[in-house]
């Protein structure tokens, strides 16, 4: 293996983090030990590494000491990785020549009952960090070109709405629809709740807008055939009737929608009588009837809705609640009350979930004289369709579980939303995951609800989970904006922590390409032979290709052999720590100060500030304690509103502080 360049001027900063680290880990000793490591020229303890003043100091050290790498041993990189990468950048060091060592969450906090062992572990971790950064390489972010086009899969309300906004923002949009016509599920409905607008009207309006916008191309009777490429450059093959179209897009939006649950034969009498139908079917009956409803020539004068059919099944497949059905059912009963006279309505429910503004519908329906009966999942209603009218037996929880009998002309099964059966196929094409409930999976339900793990593939609408129209449109519009943020730039920046191939060593056996889940490795011809080449945009840096290469010709940036082996060696080296008392201060007197000593030092500070307001260096000088210690105590007092800032000092460097709440001074 060729000799990799080593760093020779490394700066190590070990943080106290107040007392979070230093109360358990002997940071002073470790600092001294580390000073003698290879390549380390600066080794310091700091009270709060992330503090502005310390960041300034670090930059000063880098510039004056001509450091070529820094290590910060502090909290988890999840908090401050970017903070310190920025510090490195401002100081003139490549941000990837900085490493963060977690000696708080993974050391001092985890081993607070065994401080000596914690210190040994911390020392090992810091050594490992130093070895890593010794061999780390300067890296640049990867730029990929971006295509200002988007493929939207599914022309329902979500897809169409997102397509319109994407087009208005300047993207070329390819709208792909499997069926003959657009509009998805909403096109099947008339009166929608709250506004009373017709579903068909909404679809028509969207459809008209799409025709107006010239940069939307709509393909009906079209299915996705193959997808390859990556963020910025997706190659999407679409089959329209018998033709294949090759489209290029910067991002893909999946808005394929949902299906309605189809009850099993016999479920609540379904399929055994025309008097038992699902809610969507019932809505069609309502829409086309005038004056009165008839089923099999029988006038409908009583309806029983059975809720939670095919959803909320604790022992079944669909464990989730479908959100919208309670509202849809109650809204239907209000419609019926308006359109037809003298129809008695019964709601056989488990829970009523007319959430948000839809609660008004529930109250209205009760006021109309609808009767609500509550059943438990374990004892569902029994539907008997053999007689003239349908007889339903239900154990009513609200009447002390008495068995009541409901006589109805019509039974409406309020069915839930289920994921479409072609979700799995689309998931495979796009390599996006589906959840246990078979809806598409987002990265994080709260913080990243419209993105998938595949960069550039987004989710919108009910294909991600049950939603009503408003929520579906909100989600797809959110995805549209996120997509535009990517596609509007001619290039996209990606993190450089990806696989690299050593072309000299590679003999193209193909094993790495085989194991790559993201299809990121392909053979190319170079130097007169075939070698592996990594697609920078597609590679996720998962690392699975590295150990499998028999020639050791592929590695991951920031995780090269030297770095990893260096880290292991550094960690395992023996260390001798003297069992010192817990120390948290610096300064000539070697004052041992713990958090429980707060009151004593606070009294000293308070006494001093009573005379006049002072800056931190002034206080430190007066009390004979280190400035870091004074900073820590003063900041805590500031947090508890005992002191407050009193303006900058004359040289505009430090704030002076004065007392705020005099009540504290008691003895």
């Amino acid at each position, binding site marked *: 293996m060729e000799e990799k360049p080593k760093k020779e001027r490394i700066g190590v900063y070990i943080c106290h983090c107040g007392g979070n680290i230093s109360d358990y880990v002997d940071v002073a000793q470790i600092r001294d030990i580390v000073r003698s490591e290879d390549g380390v020229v600066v080794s310091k303890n700091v009270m709060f590494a992330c503090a502005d003043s310390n960041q300034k100091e670090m930059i000063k050290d880098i510039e004056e000491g001509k450091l070529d790498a820094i290590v910060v041993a502090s909290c988890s990189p999840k908090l401050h990785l970017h903070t310190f990468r920025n510090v490195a950048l401002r100081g003139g060091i490549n941000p990837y020549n900085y490493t963060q060592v977690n000696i708080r969450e993974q050391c001092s906090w985890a081993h607070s009952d065994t401080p000596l062992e914690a210190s040994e572990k911390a020392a090992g971790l810091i050594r490992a960090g130093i070895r890593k950064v010794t061999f780390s390489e300067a890296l640049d972010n990867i730029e990929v070109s971006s295509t200002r086009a988007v493929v939207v899969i599914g022309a329902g309300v979500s897809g169409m709405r997102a397509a319109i906004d994407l087009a208005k923002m300047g993207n070329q949009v390819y709208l792909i629809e499997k069926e003959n016509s657009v509009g998805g599920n909403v096109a099947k409905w008339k009166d929608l709740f709250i506004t009373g607008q017709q579903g068909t009207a909404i679809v028509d309006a969207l459809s008209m807008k799409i025709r107006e916008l010239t940069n939307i191309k709509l393909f009906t009777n079209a299915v996705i055939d193959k997808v390859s490429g990556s963020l910025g450059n997706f190659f999407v093959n679409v089959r329209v009737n018998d033709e294949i179209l090759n489209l290029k897009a910067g991002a893909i939006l999946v808005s394929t929608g949902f299906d309605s649950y189809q009850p099993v034969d016999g479920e609540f009498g379904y399929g055994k009588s025309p008097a038992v139908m699902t809610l969507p079917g019932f809505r069609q009956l309502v829409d086309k009837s005038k004056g009165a409803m008839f089923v099999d020539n029988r006038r409908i004068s009583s309806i029983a809705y059975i809720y939670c059919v095919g959803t909320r099944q604790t022992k079944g497949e669909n464990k989730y609640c479908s959100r919208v059905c309670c509202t849809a059912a109650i809204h239907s009963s209000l419609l019926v009350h308006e359109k037809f006279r003298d129809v*008695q309505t*019964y709601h056989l429910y488990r829970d*009523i979930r007319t959430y948000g503004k839809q609660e008004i519908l*529930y*109250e209205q329906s*009760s*006021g*109309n*004289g609808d*009767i*609500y009966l*509550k059943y438990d999942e374990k004892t569902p209603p029994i539907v008997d369709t053999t007689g003239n009218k349908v007889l339903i*037996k239900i154990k*009513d929880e*609200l*009447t*002390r579980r*008495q*068995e*009541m*009998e*409901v*006589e109805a002309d019509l039974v409406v099964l309020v069915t839930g939303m289920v994921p479409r059966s072609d979700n799995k196929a689309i998931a495979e094409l796009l390599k996006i995951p589906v959840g246990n409930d078979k809806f598409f999976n987002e990265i994080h339900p709260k913080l990243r609800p419209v993105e998938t793990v595949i960069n550039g593939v987004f989710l919108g609408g009910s294909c991600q989970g049950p939603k009503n129209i408003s929520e579906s449109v909100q989600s797809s519009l959110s995805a549209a904006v996120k997509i535009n943020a990517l596609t509007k730039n001619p290039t996209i920046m990606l993190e450089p922590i990806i696989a690299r191939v050593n072309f000299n060593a590679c003999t193209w056996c193909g094993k790495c390409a085989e194991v790559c889940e993201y299809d990121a490795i392909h053979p190319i011809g170079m130097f007169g032979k075939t070698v592996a080449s990594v697609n920078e945009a597609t590679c996720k840096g998962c690392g699975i290709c590295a150990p499998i290469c028999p020639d050791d010709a592929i590695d991951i940036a920031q995780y090269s052999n030297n770095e990893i082996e260096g880290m292991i060696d550094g960690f395992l080296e023996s260390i001798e720590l003297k069992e010192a008392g817990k120390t948290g201060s610096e300064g000539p007197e070697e004052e041992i100060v713990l958090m429980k000593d707060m009151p004593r030092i606070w009294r000293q500070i308070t006494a001093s500030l009573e005379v006049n307001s002072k800056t931190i260096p002034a206080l430190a000088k007066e009390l004979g304690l280190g400035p870091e210690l004074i900073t820590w105590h003063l900041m805590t007092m500031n947090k508890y509103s005992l002191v407050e800032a009193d303006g900058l000092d004359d040289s505009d460097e430090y704030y002076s502080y004065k007392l705020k709440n005099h009540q504290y001074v008691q003895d």
Partner: protein
Amino acid sequence: MSRIDQTFAFEIKKYGAKDFSTCFNCGNCTAVCGLTDKNTSFPRLFIRQGMLGQKEEILQSKELWLCYACGECSETCPRQAGPGDYMAALRRYAIASYEPTGITKLMFKSNPAFIVMTLLFAMILGFFLFTLKPHYEVSRWLFTILPFAVIHNMGLVIFSITGLSIAWGLVTMYLKLRKNGNKEGKTAGTFIKPLLALVNEIATMNRYKTCDEEEDSFWKTKPWYTQPWFIHWSIMWGFIGLLLATVLDFMFKDPATSIWWPSRILGTIAGILMIYGATLAINYRLKKVTNAYSETRLADWTFIWFLWIAGITGFWMELSVTFGADLLINHLVFIIHTIISMELVLLFAFSKFAHAAYRPLALFLFFRENGK
């Protein structure tokens, strides 16, 4: 298993509870009611039974009569379904169902019918009065149109009907309430204790005091003599005292007698109590001071105004007798007093007044069942 009958709800709404179908069974009303314990579940369960049409369960229940209509449940109801008003409507329905003639049903459900019946009874009573003073000129004129015997007998018949109706009603109620009772056999000797408990409640209104006892309730800060329990106590005992005084006078002395006669003293004190209570009650209902007084139907107004008028005219008569003035107006007042008092007695079986018979019976049976 019972078949749901939604027409019952329509029927009940005619007795006064128009909003109760918006109830969504949260149970707040039951939780806030000071009279519920772990065995009773009113008013929520009653609303449920009403919605589902469980008529028999309602007519067989004793708990219906425990309620003192404080209105706290209506105050707390998140759907403003008026459970307090609903309980009152159910009691009207029960009174109407227990008595056999159907007059009560008619009077409760239809205001015009109520007015017609009241006036009719007033007329019959008026005529009957004249048969007691046959030497008056008006009486003599009347007898030329309607024979003395007819009027007299009709009056007697009407009085008997009302007496029989209330008796029948009480028996019906007893038979129904017994069905819903303790399935374990009733032991002998469980008569005195519940009776004593009943007398205690009538005397002290202790259970009524526990109503509307929340910290922030309207009545918590008001003096005891303005609180609803005392208002009811004074009207009730005022009336009982007056009834007793009038009967004693009738039996032992000519009504026009000294004001210091013992029965007269009883009458005066009772009269003051009743007028005090009735005045405040009318005031509360006019001002709708709390939710309990928000719905006052014709039957409610009639009852309280009749009591008040009977009290005031009674005092007028006492004063006119004491100062010995034999003016025409005094005679008119006497006629009014007598008609209204008799009307109250006559309508006992067919009006809100009937609660004075049904409630004690229900309470007695309730105490007996719960081993008090």
